[in-house]
Protein backbone atom coordinates (compact mmCIF):
# COMPACT_ATOMS: atom_id res chain seq x y z
CA UNK A 1 0.00 0.00 0.00
CA UNK A 2 1.40 3.38 -0.94
CA UNK A 3 0.53 6.47 1.02
CA UNK A 4 0.80 9.81 -0.70
CA UNK A 5 3.42 11.42 1.47
CA UNK A 6 3.61 15.23 1.61
CA UNK A 7 7.14 15.87 0.34
CA UNK A 8 7.22 18.66 -2.25
CA UNK A 9 10.93 19.18 -1.63
CA UNK A 10 11.59 15.84 -3.31
CA UNK A 11 9.61 16.79 -6.41
CA UNK A 12 11.83 18.70 -8.85
CA UNK A 13 8.79 20.11 -10.72
CA UNK A 14 7.38 21.74 -7.57
CA UNK A 15 7.96 25.50 -7.35
CA UNK A 16 9.09 26.74 -3.93
CA UNK A 17 7.02 29.47 -2.22
CA UNK A 18 10.01 31.01 -0.52
CA UNK A 19 13.52 31.13 -1.87
CA UNK A 20 16.55 32.37 0.03
CA UNK A 21 19.31 32.93 -2.51
CA UNK A 22 22.74 33.51 -1.04
CA UNK A 23 21.34 35.67 1.73
CA UNK A 24 23.78 37.32 4.12
CA UNK A 25 22.85 39.69 6.93
CA UNK A 26 25.46 41.62 8.84
CA UNK A 27 25.08 43.96 11.81
CA UNK A 28 28.31 45.90 11.78
CA UNK A 29 31.00 43.25 12.09
CA UNK A 30 28.58 40.58 13.33
CA UNK A 31 27.28 38.17 10.70
CA UNK A 32 23.80 36.96 11.67
CA UNK A 33 23.05 35.06 8.45
CA UNK A 34 25.91 33.67 6.42
CA UNK A 35 25.37 33.12 2.68
CA UNK A 36 22.24 31.07 3.16
CA UNK A 37 20.29 29.37 0.39
CA UNK A 38 17.07 27.51 1.17
CA UNK A 39 13.70 26.75 -0.43
CA UNK A 40 10.43 26.42 1.46
CA UNK A 41 7.33 25.02 -0.23
CA UNK A 42 3.63 25.83 -0.13
CA UNK A 43 1.68 24.16 2.73
CA UNK A 44 4.88 23.27 4.51
CA UNK A 45 5.24 23.57 8.27
CA UNK A 46 8.86 24.57 8.33
CA UNK A 47 10.72 24.84 11.63
CA UNK A 48 13.85 26.89 12.20
CA UNK A 49 15.56 25.34 15.17
CA UNK A 50 18.68 26.49 16.93
CA UNK A 51 20.14 28.06 20.05
CA UNK A 52 19.58 31.79 20.66
CA UNK A 53 21.74 33.94 18.43
CA UNK A 54 21.95 31.35 15.65
CA UNK A 55 20.15 33.62 13.20
CA UNK A 56 16.75 31.94 13.12
CA UNK A 57 14.86 35.04 14.26
CA UNK A 58 16.75 37.20 11.75
CA UNK A 59 15.65 34.86 8.95
CA UNK A 60 12.06 35.20 10.03
CA UNK A 61 12.23 38.97 10.38
CA UNK A 62 13.65 39.18 6.86
CA UNK A 63 10.63 37.26 5.60
CA UNK A 64 8.30 39.66 7.42
CA UNK A 65 10.17 42.63 6.03
CA UNK A 66 11.52 44.08 9.28
CA UNK A 67 15.08 43.42 8.19
CA UNK A 68 16.61 43.60 4.74
CA UNK A 69 19.38 41.24 3.59
CA UNK A 70 22.85 42.77 3.31
CA UNK A 71 23.51 40.54 0.32
CA UNK A 72 21.46 38.08 -1.69
CA UNK A 73 17.80 37.82 -2.53
CA UNK A 74 14.62 36.61 -0.90
CA UNK A 75 11.82 35.59 -3.23
CA UNK A 76 8.26 34.89 -2.21
CA UNK A 77 6.16 33.28 -4.93
CA UNK A 78 8.88 34.20 -7.37
CA UNK A 79 8.83 37.91 -6.49
CA UNK A 80 11.93 39.66 -5.14
CA UNK A 81 10.87 41.10 -1.77
CA UNK A 82 13.71 43.63 -1.36
CA UNK A 83 11.59 46.70 -2.10
CA UNK A 84 8.34 45.51 -0.51
CA UNK A 85 7.61 47.05 2.92
CA UNK A 86 6.13 44.83 5.66
CA UNK A 87 2.64 46.28 5.27
CA UNK A 88 2.46 45.30 1.63
CA UNK A 89 3.55 41.68 2.05
CA UNK A 90 1.14 38.75 1.95
CA UNK A 91 2.98 37.55 5.03
CA UNK A 92 1.78 37.76 8.61
CA UNK A 93 3.59 37.15 11.81
CA UNK A 94 2.67 35.88 15.22
CA UNK A 95 4.95 37.60 17.66
CA UNK A 96 6.71 36.00 20.57
CA UNK A 97 5.14 38.52 22.95
CA UNK A 98 1.90 38.12 20.93
CA UNK A 99 1.94 41.94 20.51
CA UNK A 100 -1.81 42.19 21.05
CA UNK A 101 -2.92 45.82 21.07
CA UNK A 102 -3.79 46.44 24.72
CA UNK A 103 -6.20 49.29 23.95
CA UNK A 104 -8.35 47.23 21.58
CA UNK A 105 -10.78 44.39 22.33
CA UNK A 106 -10.06 40.92 21.05
CA UNK A 107 -12.61 41.45 18.31
CA UNK A 108 -10.95 44.67 17.22
CA UNK A 109 -7.51 43.09 17.40
CA UNK A 110 -8.60 40.45 14.91
CA UNK A 111 -10.38 43.00 12.73
CA UNK A 112 -7.35 45.33 12.76
CA UNK A 113 -5.61 43.82 9.74
CA UNK A 114 -8.85 43.41 7.80
CA UNK A 115 -9.74 47.06 8.22
CA UNK A 116 -6.39 48.02 6.70
CA UNK A 117 -7.36 45.98 3.61
CA UNK A 118 -10.39 48.26 3.07
CA UNK A 119 -12.62 45.22 3.30
CA UNK A 120 -16.41 45.90 3.42
CA UNK A 121 -17.80 45.97 6.93
CA UNK A 122 -20.06 42.94 6.58
CA UNK A 123 -17.21 40.88 5.24
CA UNK A 124 -14.93 41.94 8.09
CA UNK A 125 -17.55 40.82 10.59
CA UNK A 126 -17.92 37.50 8.90
CA UNK A 127 -14.20 36.89 8.76
CA UNK A 128 -13.62 37.87 12.40
CA UNK A 129 -16.40 35.53 13.55
CA UNK A 130 -14.84 32.76 11.49
CA UNK A 131 -11.45 33.33 13.06
CA UNK A 132 -12.99 33.43 16.54
CA UNK A 133 -14.66 30.09 15.86
CA UNK A 134 -11.47 28.60 14.49
CA UNK A 135 -9.58 29.50 17.66
CA UNK A 136 -12.53 28.90 20.00
CA UNK A 137 -12.49 32.48 21.27
CA UNK A 138 -16.02 33.55 20.30
CA UNK A 139 -17.24 34.05 23.86
CA UNK A 140 -14.28 36.31 24.72
CA UNK A 141 -14.57 38.63 21.71
CA UNK A 142 -15.49 41.74 23.72
CA UNK A 143 -12.71 41.36 26.28
CA UNK A 144 -9.44 43.22 26.27
CA UNK A 145 -6.23 41.17 25.87
CA UNK A 146 -5.27 41.53 29.54
CA UNK A 147 -8.64 40.04 30.54
CA UNK A 148 -7.90 36.60 29.10
CA UNK A 149 -5.38 33.92 30.03
CA UNK A 150 -2.00 33.35 28.41
CA UNK A 151 -3.19 30.43 26.32
CA UNK A 152 -6.18 32.42 25.10
CA UNK A 153 -3.94 35.34 24.22
CA UNK A 154 -1.85 33.01 22.15
CA UNK A 155 -4.96 31.93 20.24
CA UNK A 156 -6.01 35.54 19.66
CA UNK A 157 -2.59 36.31 18.26
CA UNK A 158 -2.94 33.35 15.93
CA UNK A 159 -6.44 34.41 14.85
CA UNK A 160 -5.27 37.95 14.21
CA UNK A 161 -2.38 36.88 12.03
CA UNK A 162 -4.48 34.36 10.11
CA UNK A 163 -7.39 36.75 9.53
CA UNK A 164 -5.80 38.31 6.46
CA UNK A 165 -5.40 34.84 4.96
CA UNK A 166 -1.68 35.26 4.37
CA UNK A 167 0.25 33.06 1.97
CA UNK A 168 2.79 32.62 4.69
CA UNK A 169 2.47 32.74 8.43
CA UNK A 170 5.52 33.31 10.59
CA UNK A 171 5.48 32.13 14.18
CA UNK A 172 8.17 33.44 16.51
CA UNK A 173 8.49 31.08 19.49
CA UNK A 174 4.69 30.91 19.54
CA UNK A 175 4.39 28.66 22.56
CA UNK A 176 7.33 29.92 24.57
CA UNK A 177 5.17 31.69 27.16
CA UNK A 178 2.93 28.70 27.87
CA UNK A 179 3.50 26.01 30.45
CA UNK A 180 4.50 22.51 29.36
CA UNK A 181 1.09 20.89 29.37
CA UNK A 182 -0.68 23.70 27.55
CA UNK A 183 2.20 23.85 25.10
CA UNK A 184 1.76 20.23 24.09
CA UNK A 185 -1.98 20.67 23.58
CA UNK A 186 -1.42 23.81 21.55
CA UNK A 187 1.12 22.14 19.31
CA UNK A 188 -1.53 19.77 18.01
CA UNK A 189 -3.99 22.63 17.69
CA UNK A 190 -1.48 24.53 15.57
CA UNK A 191 -0.97 21.56 13.28
CA UNK A 192 -4.72 21.20 12.98
CA UNK A 193 -5.23 24.84 12.06
CA UNK A 194 -2.36 24.72 9.60
CA UNK A 195 -3.96 21.78 7.87
CA UNK A 196 -7.43 23.36 7.86
CA UNK A 197 -6.30 26.69 6.44
CA UNK A 198 -3.64 25.31 4.12
CA UNK A 199 -1.32 28.17 5.00
CA UNK A 200 2.44 27.80 4.84
CA UNK A 201 3.87 28.08 8.34
CA UNK A 202 7.41 28.98 9.27
CA UNK A 203 8.07 28.56 12.97
CA UNK A 204 11.07 29.70 14.96
CA UNK A 205 11.84 27.76 18.09
CA UNK A 206 14.66 26.69 20.34
CA UNK A 207 12.63 23.75 21.66
CA UNK A 208 13.58 20.65 19.69
CA UNK A 209 10.58 18.64 20.86
CA UNK A 210 8.27 21.34 19.59
CA UNK A 211 10.01 21.46 16.23
CA UNK A 212 9.92 17.67 15.91
CA UNK A 213 6.22 17.54 16.82
CA UNK A 214 4.82 20.19 14.52
CA UNK A 215 7.12 20.48 11.54
CA UNK A 216 7.10 18.83 8.15
CA UNK A 217 10.77 19.75 7.88
CA UNK A 218 13.22 21.00 10.48
CA UNK A 219 16.20 23.22 9.72
CA UNK A 220 18.87 23.07 12.41
CA UNK A 221 20.83 26.30 12.50
CA UNK A 222 24.08 27.41 14.04
CA UNK A 223 26.05 30.63 13.62
CA UNK A 224 23.98 31.92 10.71
CA UNK A 225 24.10 28.72 8.71
CA UNK A 226 21.67 25.89 8.22
CA UNK A 227 23.46 22.71 9.24
CA UNK A 228 20.81 20.24 8.16
CA UNK A 229 17.28 20.32 6.74
CA UNK A 230 15.24 17.16 6.90
CA UNK A 231 12.01 15.62 8.13
CA UNK A 232 11.88 15.04 11.89
CA UNK A 233 12.52 11.27 11.73
CA UNK A 234 15.37 11.74 9.32
CA UNK A 235 16.99 14.44 11.40
CA UNK A 236 16.78 12.21 14.47
CA UNK A 237 17.87 8.97 12.88
CA UNK A 238 20.28 10.30 10.29
CA UNK A 239 21.92 13.46 11.59
CA UNK A 240 24.60 14.75 9.28
CA UNK A 241 26.88 16.03 12.00
CA UNK A 242 27.71 15.73 15.65
CA UNK A 243 26.18 19.19 16.17
CA UNK A 244 22.77 18.08 14.89
CA UNK A 245 22.91 14.72 16.64
CA UNK A 246 23.75 16.45 19.89
CA UNK A 247 21.17 19.22 19.47
CA UNK A 248 18.26 16.87 18.81
CA UNK A 249 17.68 14.49 21.69
CA UNK A 250 20.17 12.57 23.75
CA UNK A 251 23.17 10.93 22.12
CA UNK A 252 26.44 9.16 22.88
CA UNK A 253 29.33 10.35 20.75
CA UNK A 254 32.30 7.99 20.53
CA UNK A 255 35.36 9.17 18.67
CA UNK A 256 37.63 6.80 16.79
CA UNK A 257 39.54 5.94 13.62
CA UNK A 258 37.65 4.45 10.65
CA UNK A 259 38.68 1.26 8.92
CA UNK A 260 36.75 0.06 5.88
CA UNK A 261 35.60 -3.55 6.07
CA UNK A 262 33.11 -3.88 3.19
CA UNK A 263 31.09 -1.86 0.65
CA UNK A 264 29.32 0.19 3.36
CA UNK A 265 30.74 -1.30 6.53
CA UNK A 266 33.30 0.29 8.76
CA UNK A 267 35.11 -0.62 11.94
CA UNK A 268 35.67 2.29 14.29
CA UNK A 269 38.65 1.78 16.57
CA UNK A 270 37.75 3.74 19.66
CA UNK A 271 40.02 2.41 22.43
CA UNK A 272 43.26 0.49 22.67
CA UNK A 273 42.74 -3.24 23.16
CA UNK A 274 38.99 -3.07 22.60
CA UNK A 275 36.93 -4.66 19.88
CA UNK A 276 36.17 -1.94 17.29
CA UNK A 277 32.60 -0.78 16.77
CA UNK A 278 31.07 -2.32 13.71
CA UNK A 279 28.73 -0.05 11.83
CA UNK A 280 27.00 0.29 8.50
CA UNK A 281 26.86 3.73 6.95
CA UNK A 282 26.52 5.58 3.66
CA UNK A 283 29.14 8.04 4.79
CA UNK A 284 32.33 7.59 2.80
CA UNK A 285 35.44 7.69 4.94
CA UNK A 286 39.07 7.28 4.05
CA UNK A 287 41.32 4.77 5.80
CA UNK A 288 42.25 5.86 9.31
CA UNK A 289 40.11 9.02 9.15
CA UNK A 290 38.79 10.43 12.41
CA UNK A 291 35.11 9.55 12.75
CA UNK A 292 32.34 9.92 15.31
CA UNK A 293 29.88 7.24 16.24
CA UNK A 294 26.54 8.75 17.29
CA UNK A 295 24.52 6.27 19.25
CA UNK A 296 21.11 7.04 20.78
CA UNK A 297 20.77 5.70 24.34
CA UNK A 298 17.50 3.90 23.60
CA UNK A 299 19.19 1.89 20.85
CA UNK A 300 21.54 0.23 23.36
CA UNK A 301 20.42 -2.92 25.13
CA UNK A 302 21.69 -3.61 28.58
CA UNK A 303 22.16 -7.12 29.99
CA UNK A 304 23.88 -9.15 32.65
CA UNK A 305 25.57 -11.49 30.26
CA UNK A 306 27.15 -11.08 26.88
CA UNK A 307 24.31 -11.52 24.39
CA UNK A 308 24.67 -14.32 21.89
CA UNK A 309 25.61 -13.19 18.42
CA UNK A 310 25.51 -9.44 19.10
CA UNK A 311 27.45 -7.43 16.52
CA UNK A 312 28.60 -4.90 19.06
CA UNK A 313 28.97 -5.84 22.70
CA UNK A 314 31.05 -4.17 25.36
CA UNK A 315 31.36 -4.61 29.09
CA UNK A 316 31.07 -1.75 31.52
CA UNK A 317 30.17 -0.71 35.05
CA UNK A 318 27.04 1.20 36.11
CA UNK A 319 28.05 4.50 37.68
CA UNK A 320 24.74 6.26 37.90
CA UNK A 321 21.06 5.58 37.33
CA UNK A 322 18.55 8.21 36.34
CA UNK A 323 15.06 7.00 37.11
CA UNK A 324 12.43 8.79 35.00
CA UNK A 325 9.45 6.62 35.73
CA UNK A 326 8.72 5.03 32.42
CA UNK A 327 12.36 4.60 31.54
CA UNK A 328 15.72 4.56 33.31
CA UNK A 329 18.96 5.96 32.01
CA UNK A 330 22.08 4.06 33.00
CA UNK A 331 25.42 5.83 32.94
CA UNK A 332 27.90 3.11 32.15
CA UNK A 333 31.66 3.48 32.27
CA UNK A 334 33.45 1.55 29.54
CA UNK A 335 37.08 0.43 29.76
CA UNK A 336 39.33 3.44 29.19
CA UNK A 337 36.93 5.75 31.01
CA UNK A 338 34.42 6.43 28.18
CA UNK A 339 30.95 7.11 29.62
CA UNK A 340 27.92 5.82 27.73
CA UNK A 341 24.25 6.37 28.43
CA UNK A 342 21.90 3.48 27.84
CA UNK A 343 18.13 3.57 28.26
CA UNK A 344 15.86 0.74 29.25
CA UNK A 345 12.10 0.73 29.58
CA UNK A 346 10.95 -0.12 33.08
CA UNK A 347 8.61 -2.95 32.30
CA UNK A 348 8.87 -4.26 35.84
CA UNK A 349 8.25 -2.62 39.20
CA UNK A 350 11.19 -1.03 40.99
CA UNK A 351 11.80 -3.81 43.50
CA UNK A 352 12.18 -6.36 40.76
CA UNK A 353 14.72 -4.46 38.72
CA UNK A 354 17.95 -6.25 38.29
CA UNK A 355 20.66 -3.60 37.94
CA UNK A 356 22.10 -1.35 40.55
CA UNK A 357 25.15 0.80 41.11
CA UNK A 358 28.57 -0.76 40.53
CA UNK A 359 27.05 -3.67 38.63
CA UNK A 360 29.04 -5.04 35.72
CA UNK A 361 26.83 -5.09 32.64
CA UNK A 362 27.03 -5.80 28.92
CA UNK A 363 25.92 -3.17 26.43
CA UNK A 364 25.04 -4.24 22.93
CA UNK A 365 23.66 -2.75 19.74
CA UNK A 366 23.10 -3.68 16.15
CA UNK A 367 25.08 -2.96 13.02
CA UNK A 368 22.72 -0.15 11.92
CA UNK A 369 21.93 1.36 15.32
CA UNK A 370 24.64 4.03 15.18
CA UNK A 371 25.36 6.81 12.70
CA UNK A 372 28.93 7.34 11.64
CA UNK A 373 29.73 11.01 11.19
CA UNK A 374 32.66 12.89 9.73
CA UNK A 375 32.26 15.96 11.90
Amino acid at each position, binding site marked *: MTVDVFAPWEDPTEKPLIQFKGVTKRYGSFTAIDNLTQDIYTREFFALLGPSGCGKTTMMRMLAGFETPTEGQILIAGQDMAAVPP*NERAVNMMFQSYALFPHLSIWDNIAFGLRRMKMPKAQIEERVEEMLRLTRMTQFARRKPHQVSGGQRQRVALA*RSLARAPKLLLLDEPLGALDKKLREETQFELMDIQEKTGTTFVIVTHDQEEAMTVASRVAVMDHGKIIQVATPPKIYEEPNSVYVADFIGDVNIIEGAAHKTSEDGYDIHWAEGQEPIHAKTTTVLSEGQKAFVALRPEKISIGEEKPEGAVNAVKGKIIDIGYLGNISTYHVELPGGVMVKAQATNTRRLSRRNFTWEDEVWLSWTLTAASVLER
Partner: protein
Amino acid sequence: MKRFTWFNATSLTLGFAFLYLPMIILVIYSFNASKLVTVWAGFSTKWYGELMRNDQMLDAAWVTIKVAVASSTLATILGTMAAYVMVRGGRFMGRTLFSGMIFAPLVMPEVITGLSLFLLFKPIFTQMGAHTIILAHATFAMCYVSVVVSSRLVSFDKSLEEAALDLGCTPFESFRLVTLPIIAPAVISGWLLAFTLSLDDLVIANFTTGPGATTLPMKIWSAVRLGVNPQINALSTLMIGVVTIGVIIASISTKRAALRQKADEQAAAG
Protein backbone atom coordinates in the same frame (compact mmCIF):
# COMPACT_ATOMS: atom_id res chain seq x y z
CA MET B 1 4.28 42.54 55.42
CA LYS B 2 6.12 45.70 56.28
CA ARG B 3 4.94 47.89 59.10
CA PHE B 4 5.86 51.41 60.16
CA THR B 5 8.64 51.42 62.69
CA TRP B 6 8.82 54.17 65.24
CA PHE B 7 11.78 55.77 63.48
CA ASN B 8 10.23 55.68 60.03
CA ALA B 9 6.91 57.04 61.22
CA THR B 10 8.68 59.94 62.93
CA SER B 11 10.85 60.84 59.96
CA LEU B 12 7.86 60.72 57.63
CA THR B 13 5.72 62.83 59.95
CA LEU B 14 8.41 65.46 60.38
CA GLY B 15 9.23 65.39 56.68
CA PHE B 16 5.68 65.87 55.54
CA ALA B 17 5.09 68.51 58.21
CA PHE B 18 8.04 70.43 56.77
CA LEU B 19 6.68 70.06 53.25
CA TYR B 20 3.08 70.92 54.00
CA LEU B 21 2.94 73.25 57.03
CA PRO B 22 4.08 76.35 55.14
CA MET B 23 1.36 75.85 52.56
CA ILE B 24 -1.27 75.07 55.16
CA ILE B 25 -0.35 78.22 57.06
CA LEU B 26 -0.62 80.18 53.85
CA VAL B 27 -4.10 78.79 53.24
CA ILE B 28 -5.22 79.53 56.81
CA TYR B 29 -3.96 83.09 56.75
CA SER B 30 -5.71 83.77 53.46
CA PHE B 31 -8.90 83.78 55.57
CA ASN B 32 -7.46 86.26 58.04
CA ALA B 33 -9.43 89.47 58.39
CA SER B 34 -6.38 91.52 59.32
CA LYS B 35 -4.18 93.16 56.76
CA LEU B 36 -1.25 92.34 58.99
CA VAL B 37 -0.58 88.86 57.87
CA THR B 38 0.98 87.70 61.09
CA VAL B 39 -1.81 88.71 63.39
CA TRP B 40 -4.99 86.66 63.41
CA ALA B 41 -8.05 88.90 63.47
CA GLY B 42 -10.85 86.52 62.74
CA PHE B 43 -12.20 84.63 59.79
CA SER B 44 -13.00 86.53 56.64
CA THR B 45 -13.18 85.97 52.91
CA LYS B 46 -12.71 89.61 52.08
CA TRP B 47 -9.32 89.07 50.39
CA TYR B 48 -10.98 86.70 47.94
CA GLY B 49 -13.49 89.39 47.15
CA GLU B 50 -10.78 91.94 46.61
CA LEU B 51 -8.90 89.53 44.44
CA MET B 52 -11.97 89.01 42.27
CA ARG B 53 -12.32 92.76 41.83
CA ASN B 54 -8.64 93.18 40.95
CA ASP B 55 -8.88 93.53 37.17
CA GLN B 56 -5.14 93.66 36.69
CA MET B 57 -4.80 90.34 38.48
CA LEU B 58 -7.59 88.76 36.45
CA ASP B 59 -6.08 90.05 33.22
CA ALA B 60 -2.74 88.56 34.19
CA ALA B 61 -4.40 85.25 35.00
CA TRP B 62 -6.07 85.23 31.60
CA VAL B 63 -2.79 85.98 29.81
CA THR B 64 -1.06 83.25 31.80
CA ILE B 65 -3.64 80.63 30.93
CA LYS B 66 -3.55 81.53 27.24
CA VAL B 67 0.23 81.37 27.20
CA ALA B 68 0.23 78.08 29.12
CA VAL B 69 -2.32 76.39 26.85
CA ALA B 70 -0.57 77.48 23.67
CA SER B 71 2.96 76.75 24.82
CA SER B 72 2.17 73.39 26.40
CA THR B 73 0.32 72.21 23.30
CA LEU B 74 3.25 73.23 21.15
CA ALA B 75 5.68 71.67 23.62
CA THR B 76 3.71 68.40 23.65
CA ILE B 77 3.79 68.07 19.88
CA LEU B 78 7.48 68.92 19.65
CA GLY B 79 8.41 66.92 22.74
CA THR B 80 6.58 63.80 21.56
CA MET B 81 8.31 64.06 18.21
CA ALA B 82 11.66 64.51 19.93
CA ALA B 83 11.02 61.52 22.20
CA TYR B 84 10.10 59.39 19.22
CA VAL B 85 13.27 60.45 17.43
CA MET B 86 15.37 59.72 20.51
CA VAL B 87 13.90 56.27 21.17
CA ARG B 88 13.02 55.07 17.67
CA GLY B 89 15.05 57.33 15.39
CA GLY B 90 18.02 55.02 15.09
CA ARG B 91 21.27 56.64 14.09
CA PHE B 92 21.38 59.97 12.33
CA MET B 93 23.79 62.81 11.91
CA GLY B 94 24.15 64.95 15.01
CA ARG B 95 22.29 62.58 17.31
CA THR B 96 24.61 63.40 20.20
CA LEU B 97 24.02 67.11 19.72
CA PHE B 98 20.29 66.46 19.59
CA SER B 99 20.21 64.48 22.82
CA GLY B 100 22.40 67.15 24.41
CA MET B 101 19.95 69.86 23.40
CA ILE B 102 17.07 67.82 24.82
CA PHE B 103 18.86 67.30 28.10
CA ALA B 104 20.53 70.68 28.62
CA PRO B 105 17.42 72.83 29.16
CA LEU B 106 16.44 70.59 32.07
CA VAL B 107 19.49 71.69 34.04
CA MET B 108 19.98 75.16 32.57
CA PRO B 109 19.51 78.01 35.03
CA GLU B 110 16.42 79.93 34.06
CA VAL B 111 18.31 83.21 34.05
CA ILE B 112 20.56 81.95 31.28
CA THR B 113 17.72 80.52 29.19
CA GLY B 114 15.78 83.75 29.66
CA LEU B 115 18.69 86.00 28.76
CA SER B 116 19.66 83.99 25.69
CA LEU B 117 16.12 83.90 24.35
CA PHE B 118 15.73 87.61 24.96
CA LEU B 119 18.88 88.28 22.96
CA LEU B 120 17.54 86.05 20.16
CA PHE B 121 14.07 87.59 20.04
CA LYS B 122 15.10 91.22 20.38
CA PRO B 123 16.38 91.72 16.82
CA ILE B 124 13.74 89.43 15.25
CA PHE B 125 10.50 90.71 16.74
CA THR B 126 9.63 94.39 16.68
CA GLN B 127 7.66 93.82 19.84
CA MET B 128 7.88 91.09 22.45
CA GLY B 129 4.88 89.83 24.35
CA ALA B 130 2.72 86.77 24.80
CA HIS B 131 3.94 85.27 21.51
CA THR B 132 7.58 85.38 22.56
CA ILE B 133 6.75 83.89 25.97
CA ILE B 134 4.92 81.09 24.21
CA LEU B 135 7.95 80.32 22.04
CA ALA B 136 10.26 80.40 25.06
CA HIS B 137 8.05 78.20 27.21
CA ALA B 138 7.45 75.71 24.41
CA THR B 139 11.20 75.36 24.00
CA PHE B 140 12.11 74.45 27.55
CA ALA B 141 8.88 72.55 28.24
CA MET B 142 9.31 70.34 25.18
CA CYS B 143 12.39 68.89 26.81
CA TYR B 144 10.40 67.89 29.89
CA VAL B 145 7.67 66.43 27.69
CA SER B 146 10.21 64.43 25.74
CA VAL B 147 11.65 63.00 28.97
CA VAL B 148 8.20 61.89 30.14
CA VAL B 149 7.16 60.48 26.78
CA SER B 150 10.45 58.76 26.01
CA SER B 151 10.44 56.96 29.35
CA ARG B 152 7.09 55.52 28.30
CA LEU B 153 8.33 54.75 24.80
CA VAL B 154 11.36 52.89 26.13
CA SER B 155 9.14 50.43 27.97
CA PHE B 156 6.81 50.20 24.98
CA ASP B 157 6.93 46.77 23.33
CA LYS B 158 8.33 47.49 19.90
CA SER B 159 6.69 44.41 18.46
CA LEU B 160 3.31 46.17 18.81
CA GLU B 161 4.38 48.62 16.13
CA GLU B 162 5.80 45.81 14.04
CA ALA B 163 2.55 43.92 14.41
CA ALA B 164 0.68 46.97 13.11
CA LEU B 165 2.98 47.16 10.08
CA ASP B 166 2.63 43.43 9.61
CA LEU B 167 -1.15 43.78 9.58
CA GLY B 168 -1.00 46.35 6.82
CA CYS B 169 -0.50 49.73 8.49
CA THR B 170 1.68 52.38 6.96
CA PRO B 171 4.21 53.74 9.47
CA PHE B 172 2.03 56.77 10.10
CA GLU B 173 -1.10 54.66 10.61
CA SER B 174 0.82 52.48 13.01
CA PHE B 175 1.73 55.55 15.05
CA ARG B 176 -1.81 56.93 15.00
CA LEU B 177 -3.68 53.68 15.65
CA VAL B 178 -1.31 51.85 17.98
CA THR B 179 1.53 53.92 19.43
CA LEU B 180 -0.37 57.10 20.21
CA PRO B 181 -3.34 55.47 21.99
CA ILE B 182 -0.95 53.44 24.13
CA ILE B 183 1.39 56.27 25.07
CA ALA B 184 -1.52 58.71 25.46
CA PRO B 185 -1.31 58.80 29.28
CA ALA B 186 2.34 59.82 29.07
CA VAL B 187 1.56 62.44 26.43
CA ILE B 188 -1.22 63.84 28.62
CA SER B 189 0.97 64.00 31.69
CA GLY B 190 3.63 65.61 29.54
CA TRP B 191 1.12 68.25 28.53
CA LEU B 192 0.09 68.82 32.14
CA LEU B 193 3.71 69.14 33.17
CA ALA B 194 4.36 71.65 30.40
CA PHE B 195 1.20 73.50 31.39
CA THR B 196 2.23 73.82 35.05
CA LEU B 197 5.79 74.77 34.12
CA SER B 198 4.41 77.58 32.01
CA LEU B 199 1.91 78.69 34.68
CA ASP B 200 4.71 78.73 37.17
CA ASP B 201 7.49 80.43 35.31
CA LEU B 202 8.61 83.87 36.38
CA VAL B 203 12.18 84.23 35.21
CA ILE B 204 11.98 83.25 31.55
CA ALA B 205 8.67 85.08 31.09
CA ASN B 206 10.16 88.20 32.60
CA PHE B 207 13.02 88.14 30.10
CA THR B 208 10.92 87.42 27.05
CA THR B 209 7.83 89.51 27.70
CA GLY B 210 6.94 92.85 26.28
CA PRO B 211 4.48 95.62 26.95
CA GLY B 212 0.98 94.44 27.70
CA ALA B 213 1.86 90.85 28.48
CA THR B 214 2.06 90.50 32.23
CA THR B 215 1.69 86.97 33.53
CA LEU B 216 0.40 85.97 36.93
CA PRO B 217 3.81 85.02 38.35
CA MET B 218 5.11 88.45 37.30
CA LYS B 219 2.16 90.06 39.05
CA ILE B 220 2.71 87.98 42.18
CA TRP B 221 6.39 88.76 42.06
CA SER B 222 5.96 92.50 42.02
CA ALA B 223 3.42 92.25 44.86
CA VAL B 224 5.39 89.99 47.21
CA ARG B 225 8.74 91.68 46.77
CA LEU B 226 7.38 94.32 49.08
CA GLY B 227 6.41 91.73 51.68
CA VAL B 228 3.51 89.49 52.59
CA ASN B 229 0.29 90.43 50.87
CA PRO B 230 -3.11 88.98 51.87
CA GLN B 231 -4.50 89.09 48.34
CA ILE B 232 -1.62 86.93 47.20
CA ASN B 233 -2.42 84.52 50.03
CA ALA B 234 -5.93 84.21 48.69
CA LEU B 235 -4.65 83.70 45.15
CA SER B 236 -2.15 81.11 46.39
CA THR B 237 -4.90 79.23 48.19
CA LEU B 238 -6.95 79.07 45.03
CA MET B 239 -3.98 77.81 43.03
CA ILE B 240 -3.01 75.23 45.65
CA GLY B 241 -6.62 74.08 45.83
CA VAL B 242 -6.92 73.55 42.08
CA VAL B 243 -3.65 71.62 41.92
CA THR B 244 -4.47 69.49 44.96
CA ILE B 245 -7.87 68.49 43.61
CA GLY B 246 -6.35 67.75 40.22
CA VAL B 247 -3.55 65.60 41.59
CA ILE B 248 -5.86 63.71 43.93
CA ILE B 249 -8.34 62.96 41.13
CA ALA B 250 -5.52 61.86 38.86
CA SER B 251 -3.95 59.58 41.44
CA ILE B 252 -7.26 58.02 42.45
CA SER B 253 -8.16 57.30 38.86
CA THR B 254 -4.76 55.74 38.11
CA LYS B 255 -5.02 53.68 41.28
CA ARG B 256 -8.49 52.49 40.29
CA ALA B 257 -7.29 51.62 36.81
CA ALA B 258 -4.38 49.66 38.28
CA LEU B 259 -6.69 47.80 40.66
CA ARG B 260 -9.12 47.00 37.87
CA GLN B 261 -6.30 45.72 35.71
CA LYS B 262 -5.00 43.57 38.56
CA ALA B 263 -8.45 42.12 39.20
CA ASP B 264 -8.92 41.41 35.49
CA GLU B 265 -5.60 39.66 35.27
CA GLN B 266 -6.34 37.53 38.29
CA ALA B 267 -9.73 36.64 36.85
CA ALA B 268 -8.16 35.77 33.50
CA ALA B 269 -5.45 33.62 35.09
CA GLY B 270 -7.91 31.80 37.34
